[in-house]
């Protein structure tokens, strides 16, 4: 087994690689037949649709101004026009909250007044997100069932969470590249005997912790038990990671960045992208997401000379051409970051093509149009072939709006999860043909 993957220049930002590294044993089989991977990218506040929508042409489609940065990968893109977050017409929450919470779950938010009260239940999403549904099937094959990355999310409310392991169970993203890095790649600097002792101790302490959780779960109310059982699941997941924890990937370095300085937003995003790609490349997980800021993100972008916050701008009327131009700039900038991700994925060779070819990369937004808070037509970009489950190089325009639950079903199917409906079945009418 070579460590071809990890010797690549997997991390940018001046990263250096360890001279030698181990590739997890489970990857040996995987490299023979590279597995499919699912990557979900989020950016906020809707888009400017007419500047986002590609034009059909005789040979296929012509990229729009916003998507122009994706030109090098046009043949690997599948653009979907006409997806409708139909569920967002229902249930509690404002349009941003619903957009964010429904986006990957396809169901209503839980009742509860998240604006102010501390009622029961909390008002997070009412179901599992599609990536976690896929992780239920394939997450056990890798050290981490999934990895969640964030860039300056800076909050922990319903506007800031898109990944859910179940109803009222949001999974927080890792927002600090250094911490993400050390979680994933900090190789154990121990010899075999020390490693064995550590693993033995971890196993015994986790067993004990698990026992106390089981005992507690049996003695408390049903409402409390749900949370303790989630805790038990989490401990089980860590126990499963124990076996893989001695086989780290490359050990490059990540520099510290001020996580509050808005000027670092691009750099943090780039580092997180690098770590995400490396984690996929060396088989630490098959499922990853990266969340830029949050729904209602009101960050300015001084590097684009945009001093007004994104959310504030997104409310400007269509007639405000200056603001519309700035929104196009913001969304184009996110397309550039998406292009960087694709470039990194496409730069890693696997036995049957590139890593990108084995990915399904989804770029999604919680809104369609910011100033009316609409949820259709949602700007949806898919990249990669997912080992053949996706046929890219196309713009698909649906003549009548398609509920986004159908898209979620198709994503799961592409990843090998055989479901026929997802989220609230009231909003799901089947699947999409992505191949």
């Amino acid at each position: 087994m070579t460590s071809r993957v990890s010797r690549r220049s997997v991390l940018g930002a001046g990263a250096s690689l360890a001279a030698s590294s181990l590739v997890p044993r489970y990857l040996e089989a995987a490299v023979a037949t590279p597995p499919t991977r699912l990557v979900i990218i989020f950016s906020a506040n809707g888009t400017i649709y007419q500047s986002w929508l590609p034009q059909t042409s005789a040979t296929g489609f012509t990229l729009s101004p916003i998507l122009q940065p994706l030109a090098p990968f046009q043949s690997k893109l599948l653009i979907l026009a006409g997806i409708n977050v139909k569920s967002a017409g229902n249930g509690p929450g404002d349009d941003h909250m619903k957009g964010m919470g429904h986006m990957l779950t396809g169901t209503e938010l839980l009742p509860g007044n998240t604006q102010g009260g501390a009622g029961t239940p909390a008002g997070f999403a009412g179901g599992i997100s599609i990536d976690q549904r896929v992780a239920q099937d394939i997450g056990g094959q890798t050290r981490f069932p999934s990895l969640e990355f964030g860039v300056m999310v800076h909050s922990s409310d319903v506007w800031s969470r898109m990944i859910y392991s179940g109803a009222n169970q949001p999974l927080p993203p890792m927002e600090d590249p250094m911490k993400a890095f050390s979680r994933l790649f900090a190789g154990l600097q121990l010899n075999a005997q020390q490693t064995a002792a550590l693993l033995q101790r971890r196993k015994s302490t986790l067993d004990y912790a698990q026992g106390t959780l089981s005992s507690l779960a049996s003695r408390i109310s049903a409402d409390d038990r749900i949370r303790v059982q989630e805790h038990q699941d989490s401990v089980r997941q860590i126990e499963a990671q124990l076996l893989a924890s001695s086989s780290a990937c490359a050990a490059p370095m990540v520099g510290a960045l001020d996580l509050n300085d808005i000027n670092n937003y691009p750099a943090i995003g780039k580092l997180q992208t690098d770590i995400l790609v490396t984690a996929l490349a060396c088989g630490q997980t098959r499922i990853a997401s990266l969340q830029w800021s949050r729904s209602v993100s009101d960050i300015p972008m001084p590097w684009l000379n945009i001093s007004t916050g994104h959310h504030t701008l997104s409310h400007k009327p269509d007639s405000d051409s200056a603001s519309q131009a700035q929104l196009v700039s913001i969304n184009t900038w996110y397309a550039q970051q998406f292009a960087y991700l694709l470039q990194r994925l496409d730069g890693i060779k696997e036995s049957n093509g590139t890593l990108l070819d084995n990915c399904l990369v989804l770029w999604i937004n919680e809104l369609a149009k910011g100033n009316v808070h609409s949820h259709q037509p949602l700007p949806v970009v898919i990249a990669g072939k997912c080992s053949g489950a996706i046929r890219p190089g196309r713009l698909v325009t649906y003549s009548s709006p398609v509920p986004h639950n159908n898209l979620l079903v198709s994503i799961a199917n592409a990843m090998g999860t055989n479901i026929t409906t997802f989220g609230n079945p009231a909003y799901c009418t089947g699947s999409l043909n992505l191949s």
Partner: protein
Amino acid sequence: MRRRRLAPSGPLAAPVVAIAGAACLGTIGDGLSGESAGAGTVIDRFADATVVAECATISPGPAPLRRLTQSEYNSTVRDLLGDKTSPANSFPPDQKVGDFTNTAVALTVPPLLAQAYQSAAEQLAATAMQNIAALTSCSTATSGETACAAKFIADFGKRAYRRPLTSDEQGALFALYQANRSGADYSNGIQAVIEAMLQSAPFLYRVEFGDTTQLAGGVVPLLPYETASRLSYFLWGSMPDDTLFAAADANQLATSAQVASQARRMLSDPKAQPAVREFYAQWLTLDTVASVAKDPKTYPALTPALRSAMHDETLAFIDWVMWQSDGRMQTMLTAPVSFLNAALASVYGVSGVVGSALTKVNLDSTQRAGLLTQPALMTVLGKADRSSPVVRGKFVRERLLCQTISPPPSNIVITPPQVTPGVSTRQAFSIHDQVEPCKSCHTLMDPIGFGFENYDGMGRWRTVDQGQPVDAHGTLSASDIDGPFNGAVDLAGKLAQSQEMNDCVATEWFRYAMGRGETPDDACSMAALKGTFASAGFDIRELLIAISTSDAFRYRPQVNP
């Protein structure tokens, strides 16, 4: 005050709400009704007088299982192990619901957190082993390793689990010790015991079953150790100390007077200071000062160091009100003093302050009054490139008057005005007063927020905005202090006189103390503590005592697995 004792927001709020913006306004906190305050809905669970007619029966409200929050974890390991490294600062953030991050039902343990618990436990245990003598007085040389291990498990276990261990628990931990001792040595076994306990349910959760021998009407009083933990986590944000453990050992936390006596002792302890700060930091959203997005070109002076100083200033002011001054809400809202260093003095335009340490400064009482005009709050409640009358007015409604504003209707084009040279913020936002559908809801926010127009988006005093003279006249409506006012100093004075504001503070403290919203079952507890708060001249310290001794705090529903 008595007129409202048993109906905290009922008789007053219900008719008031009907006057203006009825479709927009609600009362925060939905409790168990499970409905949200959507447009057209006014939630006022205390409006029905029959709900609160009888307070003879003890009715504590729900008591969901509570997980240690990040700050509680930090303080607990500080007191348990003497470790001041605040390891929970690197945990994923506690989920935020409503105004606080300690809402019990939102505090789940996703895998990222479980792994962080493991890492922290390993680090904490390793550090603790460097000075294990501080944790146990047992000498293995004289007593033997087995005896010392058993003693450590019982002694340390009682402090870690905040109650004596059962024999089964001691047995399981001793087995763990032996498993990790074999082939290694005594300290390896003890280290594993510490690691395991720090990841276990009784440490991470505040488990309560109550005294089932005193079950009455589905309600049980808390067991002494459970009461001790409620007190210590409420007033110290941490585990009980030796005195509380001793009181629990002796069953001296059973009566209201006994609990009050402990609560008074605890409030006079320095550990109360950071715990009380934590409430204010969350209530005032101070935690976002460091990260709130600001345009560096509009606010080049707003450096990370200045943001940090703003945050510290407000906490220093709160400390002063709570522990040096009279602890009253009126002082909190109106005192024209603050705590400045050189950088903050430049924000205030005050001369003569040097250095980076905060020192008490008397401010111009025509420009500054208490919390509300402090730069931290004005920065948080602003846009990236300007002040925000909307956000500031909304803050007063929601955090100080406990009302909710419905979100804007779906599918309308909302066009917040852009910064335009020559057009003041007030002029730009006045569009809200003129057109529907904006008008009906913004009438509730903007006229309050305009009162803050003398403070720019980072809290600097201004009399001119975009070349236009600042007009800080405002209007309060749908409250018990309705009427015009001029500027935030005037507004703060009016708020300080508002029963509704003081009731709201009591409500917010109750929510924070209980880790949940109030419910109809809490009506009697709420009424009692609001009454006590009023009787004490709205001294917040007395409010905290009243919460500690309330039925909601000392009792819980029977646990039904």
